[in-house]
């Protein structure tokens, strides 16, 4: 039997879990771990901020489906990954985070860089562990990966005090893991599946509403089969962008606050809604009591707590999406629903997604549309949070799932760039484009050092409106255009009540993203007019190196359609004046 230190056990265990890449940043209480990593087979990516490490692990996990791993130190290292854990937790992303901790004999003494890491991260992890005995370490790592990747996935944190990292014990990695208190349900209840099939067979206006659960369980094929067999239109959540092909008449696009007119109309008119792996987020439902009032609701979800949490459902089916849908397929009748689909086509024609395509302004939607065209929806798009995120979700036609990475539930600005980097490490040969805003990008742009030092080819497209655009839009619509602290060009000396961008008089925007990119040895380009967009994007895609595009878009462009907060899906605004 081999004797190994806790740190070596950790590294060996990660290798046994088939971990290829780890993101992180060293620190005092994690030094034995980093010593064990040095010269090991683990590919360690040194980030410039721990938050970046967590988002990279997340982006890697979202794009590949394998758990993402990050290792950071105690105290500030651990607190810096909290946002990353929160993002992964809300969006059901499998992640394992390892944190160093002060020695067991000083825990609770306010030691240098001590934080109650398991306490702080409890509400943002699926589970966490504090390892107090080196003999339990290997099993804890095994359990951490098992918990992170099974059932409804999520982040799991393992906190390892420095003395445990140094202690020695015999190492064998367990083959099996069995947790008596944790047994996710995969098979759906047969009776419930039968009831669902019956209700679908007798329905006139059914709608499939699909979310991340479909992507996690790999049930995209089953959704296509069911929808085609029974002629059921499909709407997707933000996190399921790409999970259902756009180029069919059954695709409704995204629903909810910034969803399509036809998706929201269809939901409101439906007589049966089959929600699969979606959780009735408030951004999807609008005013809950007015949501799909005419519909019987079926909810297929692996997480029993997601069921009847927001909307009281008629038929709950607890189980894995793919397994449940497979079982359901043979019970569903082949059907044509000409009339229902005709109504939907009318809605599609009535208000398709649109912006002013004919003027000469540089609309941000145009940029996303062009990107989508040029890469034919095959590139991985990683977005930040805000207006650019919604335009990306609306206009990027991803060819399949796991191509659109975005922080949906937590909505954390600063996610996009590091998540894109993580995805690029997962798929080195795939085009990865980060679509970000000037506000979001400034929250994690230090990770450009990771791009350059690892020689990775990633593209950053900044839809720069010099505002925290979504905040500004809400201030324009609901706060009488009082642009309180949403202008990022603003400087001392600006008009106190400035509420309109005046290009001539506005101060020069900082930072100069082009010069900033150059300081990393990266090509930066600025685009200020519409006709230059396409050539710049083409050039960006031709270059086999990182590129930063600073695209100065129409400053006060708004996202439409829009369901204002608290309004029903029936009350969507198609444009500014209603």
């Amino acid at each position, binding site marked *: 039997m081999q004797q190994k230190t806790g740190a070596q056990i950790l590294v060996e265990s990660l290798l046994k879990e088939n971990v290829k890449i780890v993101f992180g940043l060293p620190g005092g209480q994690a030094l034995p771990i980093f010593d064990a990593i040095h010269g090991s087979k683990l590919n360690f990516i040194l980030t410039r901020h721990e938050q970046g490490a967590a988002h990279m692990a997340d982006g890697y996990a979202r794009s590949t489906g394998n758990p993402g791993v990050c290792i950071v130190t105690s105290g500030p290292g651990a607190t810096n990954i909290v946002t990353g854990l929160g993002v992964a937790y809300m969006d059901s992303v499998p992640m394992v985070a390892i944190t160093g901790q002060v020695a067991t004999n000083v825990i609770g003494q306010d030691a240098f860089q001590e934080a109650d890491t*398991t*306490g702080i991260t*409890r*509400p943002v992890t*699926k*589970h966490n562990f*504090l390892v107090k005995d080196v003999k339990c370490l290997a099993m804890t790592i095994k359990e951490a990966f098992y*918990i992170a990747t099974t059932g409804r996935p999520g982040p799991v944190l393992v906190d390892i005090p420095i003395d445990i990292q140094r202690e020695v014990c015999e190492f064998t990695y367990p083959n099996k893991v069995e*947790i*008596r*208190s*944790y047994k996710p349900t995969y098979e759906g209840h047969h009776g419930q599946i039968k009831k669902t099939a019956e209700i679908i067979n007798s329905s006139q206006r059914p709608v499939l509403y699909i979310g991340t659960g479909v992507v996690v369980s790999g049930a995209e094929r089953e959704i296509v089969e069911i929808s085609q067999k029974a002629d059921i239109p499909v709407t997707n959540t933000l996190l399921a962008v790409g999970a259902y092909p756009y180029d069919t008449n059954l695709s409704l696009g995204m629903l909810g606050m910034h969803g399509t007119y036809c998706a929201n109309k269809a939901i409101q008119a439906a007589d049966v809604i089959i929600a699969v792996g979606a959780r009735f987020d408030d951004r999807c439902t609008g005013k809950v009591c007015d949501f799909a009032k005419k519909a019987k609701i079926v909810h297929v979800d692996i*997480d*029993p*707590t997601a069921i*009847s*949490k927001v909307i009281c459902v008629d038929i709950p089916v607890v189980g894995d999406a793919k397994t449940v849908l497979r079982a359901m397929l043979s019970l569903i009748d082949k059907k044509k629903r000409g009339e229902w689909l005709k109504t939907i086509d009318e809605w599609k024609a009535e208000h398709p997604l649109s912006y002013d395509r004919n003027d000469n302004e540089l609309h941000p939607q145009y940029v996303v549309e062009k990107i989508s065209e040029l890469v034919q929806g095959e590139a991985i798009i990683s977005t930040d949070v805000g207006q650019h995120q919604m335009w990306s979700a609306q206009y990027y036609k991803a060819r399949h799932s796991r191509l659109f990475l975005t922080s949906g539930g937590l909505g954390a600005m600063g996610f996009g760039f590091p998540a894109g980097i993580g995805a690029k490490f997962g798929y080195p040969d795939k085009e990865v484009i980060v679509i970000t805003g000037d506000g979001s990008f400034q929250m994690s742009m230090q990770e450009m050092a990771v791009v350059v030092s690892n020689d990775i080819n990633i593209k950053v497209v900044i839809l720069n409106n010099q505002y925290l655009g979504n905040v500004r839009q809400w201030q324009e619509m609901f706060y009488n255009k009082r642009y309180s602290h949403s202008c990022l060009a603003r400087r001392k000396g600006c008009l106190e009540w400035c509420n309109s961008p005046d290009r001539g008089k506005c101060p020069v925007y900082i930072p100069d993203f082009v010069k900033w990119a150059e300081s990393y040895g990266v090509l930066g380009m600025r685009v200020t007019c519409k006709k230059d967009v396409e050539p710049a994007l083409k050039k960006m895609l031709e270059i086999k190196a990182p590129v930063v595009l600073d695209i100065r878009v129409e400053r006060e462009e708004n996202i439409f359609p829009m369901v204002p907060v608290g309004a029903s899906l029936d009350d969507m605004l198609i444009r500014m004046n209603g």
Partner: protein
Amino acid sequence: MRHMVSVLMENKFGVLARISTLFAARGFNIDSLSVSETEDPAISRMTIVVKSDGSILEQVTKQLNKLVDIIKVNDFTDCATIERGLALIKINMTKSCRDEIIGLIGMFRARIVDISQDSIVTEITGDENKIDAFMKVVMPYGIKETNRTGIVALTRGNTNKAK
């Protein structure tokens, strides 16, 4: 409405914190709580009494079930159960009312566990109502101090499972 939830869980550090965080994050005050090892030392049983709306409690019990260290959650609210709590009560006692107090203690089948010149400490077990009733009748004599345990409960007979 008063609800009683019985939770079987791994006997490990941190589990109590996970459970109390769940309640606290939703702004629920736990009225009574008791935790102890079961016949299997690796498993603890926790009995929680809270006041809440039924649908919210259903969500909370589901979320309790979701916690990795929790083995089983039973909502005892509508079950036939035996409930017991224990209270130690120190009552003011003057010579003149000594017999009266001892009489009350006898009637409630409480026990005297300590006695001094001016006070008496009594131990009473029973469900919440019985303990409340006893406290009410001794209140006029002056209660110096009390210490009550949380309620422990089991279902009757073969009704192992809650609804």
